[in-house]
């Protein structure tokens, strides 16, 4: 029995197309994995199903009847509930308040007591034990996810969409959550698992669909017949694989970046850093693997100097790192943040200002009293040419660049001047294959030029391919580093577990 059928769905944001005729079929009682790289359109497609976006074209049917959802409420009415990767919880409110907010109308509760009773009944059934009075933004991420699932079920969802449910969980938490999802499906509901992890598909799903660049490339195939290789190929396509040039042997310079017993308190939604030791040599790429949200962002912030530390030392080339971000940049530190529009670039400002800004800072600023437009434009044109930034002009606001071109611009800005340490956080996430290859080539070249490169990535393939040494980050801690030749995926998985 078909629960949902989406066909020929198109959706664009402004002039940027996100879906180009995507299809999706969901049956009752199944766990259906929707697989794809970042930016493939899988979340957008499910947002259309859940009423968060309205499709520009295409048809949608629920239980065989055509439907069109203008609002999430309309989708909920039809029994569709979505748990987003970024939870839709109101942080300052309590658990029970969030449940009342989302479900009171649909569940028909008249009083707080009724809501509490319903919540506790479901909690007992699922084995969730949440304090109804707890403030949501003070709870652990895994508890927030449990609350989200309860919310959706209490609102009467029969079709459950989970967007990257395991991204923020530890191994055991993820296994428990996926097991629960199977139980729910076996009970007669239908579950969509949006993911880019092969493990979630092969271990816990009945069928799988794969999306690439806004289109459905595998349409509801039985998961049993798939292999990791066939799925990855479907996800990334058969784009030409670049020749990986063997790294030329070169001399390593010890202690370019040394971190000793670095600790930092957790901020509101974050992770505390706990006694981190790191030693990245000049000329090597040091790969730091691990699931996102385990302290990676905090580590980057601590290294570039915008996070308050509670202890430990950071040394550049054997001397204490300057305390301020501007001092560290002058000492040769560069960074590529995971969220380039959030922590790297200035979307509203012209490309030329984005490129020139670092050169205006600190004691060694190239221009202080008179910053001419011509000078900035010249820098911008050089960067556009050197880094092959497509569709760019010096006065173009950077937010109008595509992801890959914005990342090239980020590299152009950061690689300028004397660089000795580079922190690259998920530098290829969400980029197309050619941009990925360009970025990876730049990282290799930087290492060969003697820069100490700290590569932080969730993408194990990238880590294994680029790194000289590898360590794992989990729960705010870092494992001792090991040469890449001595580790494999299984070893990395074990390291993550050992770091609790």
């Amino acid at each position, binding site marked *: 029995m078909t629960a949902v059928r989406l066909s020929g769905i198109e959706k664009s*944001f402004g002039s940027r197309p996100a879906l180009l005729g995507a299809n999706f079929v969901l049956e009752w009682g199944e766990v259906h994995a929707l697989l794809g790289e970042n930016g493939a359109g899988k979340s957008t497609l499910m947002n259309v199903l859940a009423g*968060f976006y309205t499709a520009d074209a295409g048809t949608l049917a629920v239980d065989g009847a055509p439907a069109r959802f203008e*609002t*999430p*409420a309309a989708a*909920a009415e039809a029994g569709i509930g979505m748990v*987003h990767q970024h*939870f*839709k*919880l*109101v*942080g*300052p*409110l309590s658990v029970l*308040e*969030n449940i*009342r*907010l*989302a479900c*009171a*109308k*649909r569940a028909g509760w008249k009083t707080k007591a009724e809501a509490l009773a319903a919540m506790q009944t479901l909690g007992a059934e699922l084995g969730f034990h949440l304090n109804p009075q707890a403030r949501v933004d003070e709870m652990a991420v895994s508890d927030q996810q449990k609350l989200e699932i309860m919310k959706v079920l209490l609102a009467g969802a029969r079709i459950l969409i989970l967007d990257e449910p395991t991204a923020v969980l530890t191994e055991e938490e993820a296994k428990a959550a996926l097991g629960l999802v199977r139980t729910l499906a076996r009970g007669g509901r239908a579950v969509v698992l949006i993911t880019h992890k092969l493990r979630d598909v092969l271990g816990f799903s009945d069928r799988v669909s794969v999306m690439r660049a806004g289109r459905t490339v595998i349409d509801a195939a039985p998961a049993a017949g798939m292999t990791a290789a066939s799925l990855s190929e479907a996800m990334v396509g058969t784009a030409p694989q670049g020749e990986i040039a063997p790294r030329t042997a070169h001399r390593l310079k010890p202690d370019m970046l040394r971190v000793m017993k670095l600790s930092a308190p957790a901020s509101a939604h974050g992770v505390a850093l706990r006694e981190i030791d790191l030693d990245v040599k000049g000329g090597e790429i040091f790969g730091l693997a691990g699931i996102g949200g385990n302290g990676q962002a905090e580590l980057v912030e601590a290294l570039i100097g915008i996070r308050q530390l509670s202890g430990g030392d950071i040394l550049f080339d054997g001397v204490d790192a300057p305390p301020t971000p501007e001092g560290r940049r002058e000492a040769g530190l560069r960074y590529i943040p995971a969220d380039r529009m959030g922590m790297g670039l200035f979307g509203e400002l012209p490309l030329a200002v984005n490129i020139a800004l670092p050169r205006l800072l600190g004691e060694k600023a190239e221009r202080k009293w008179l910053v001419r437009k011509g000078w900035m434009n010249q820098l911008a044109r050089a960067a556009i040419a050197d880094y092959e930034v497509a569709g760019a002009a010096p006065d173009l606001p950077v937010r109008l660049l595509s992801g890959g071109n914005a990342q090239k611009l980020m590299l152009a800005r950061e690689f300028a001047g004397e660089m000795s340490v580079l922190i690259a956080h998920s530098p290829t996430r969400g980029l197309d294959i050619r941009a990925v290859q360009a970025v990876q080539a730049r990282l290799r070249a930087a290492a060969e030029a003697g820069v100490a490169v700290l590569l932080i990535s969730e993408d194990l393939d990238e880590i294994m391919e680029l790194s000289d040494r590898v360590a794992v980050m989990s729960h705010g801690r870092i494992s001792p580093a090991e040469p890449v030749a001595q580790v494999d995926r299984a070893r990395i998985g074990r390291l993550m577990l050992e770091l609790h």
Partner: protein
Amino acid sequence: MIATLLAAWAATIPAFAAPFLLATVGLIINERAGVMNLGAEGIMAIAAVVSVLISLDGGGVGVALLGGVAAGLVLTAVFAVLAVLLRVDQVLAGLVTFALGIGISGYVGDGYDNQTIPGLSALPTSLFGWMPKTLAGVLDQDVLTYVAFGIAVLVWYIIEHTDLGLRLRAVGEDAPAADAAGVNVALYRLGAVLAGGVLCAVAGAHLSLVGSHLWVDGMVAGRGWIAVAMVTLARWNALRAIAAALLFGAIQALVPQLLSSGLNVPVYFIEMSPYLATLAYLLLAGMFANGADAQPVDLGRPYLREERR
């Protein structure tokens, strides 16, 4: 001598506090839904002048109050359209509302300055005859002042204890999450802005109908601005707003008492004290109790679902 002075002072406090209380509670409704309205001063002015004009035209107190509220509501609607529908920066939209209100009230009130109206007087003294005299003085207020304190309690209950209030708070704390939960963000914000505007308008009508019994250009005298600051002092809680309003009302009521008593005291320093107290409170709250946390997270942030953030 001192005792009489204190009793006279205490008796005037509630009527001084009521307009502050009404406007502050109105702005609390706004801000809990995520909208900051700097136009309160203008809304109060327009309501005050229209109430007086209707009274001068022979209208009864009830009609005058309704007319004032209607005028304030029209002006609030301008703000609502700007801030909620057109997503103009709320500070800017509020200032436009302020200037429109002050400007238009100066216009329509031109030529009617200082003409006294009967206004609304206190309840008959006989009702309170059996009480001790000081208490009777404090309790012998007009109906509108009683309504003001009642409204504060009612609004507090609605915001903190009903589903309506829950949705209102959700809109102010996290508009996208509230939207996801099926709350119509724009509708709730519009409703909150208009409800808040009604209370600001009642506050303005109170000024002329209960306080001065006449209209003078500039008679709101910054009370609308003070209400904006008092929201912070009340930590966005309508019950605490009662305490904040009593503080400001007490100081304002003290000044005429002091002037008529002939005591030589630094009047302006005394008038300054509630402002300094509010500033000090703001700073202390920031220093110690994570004070800014009481502020709705999405305050001042326009919401449009299609804008991904």
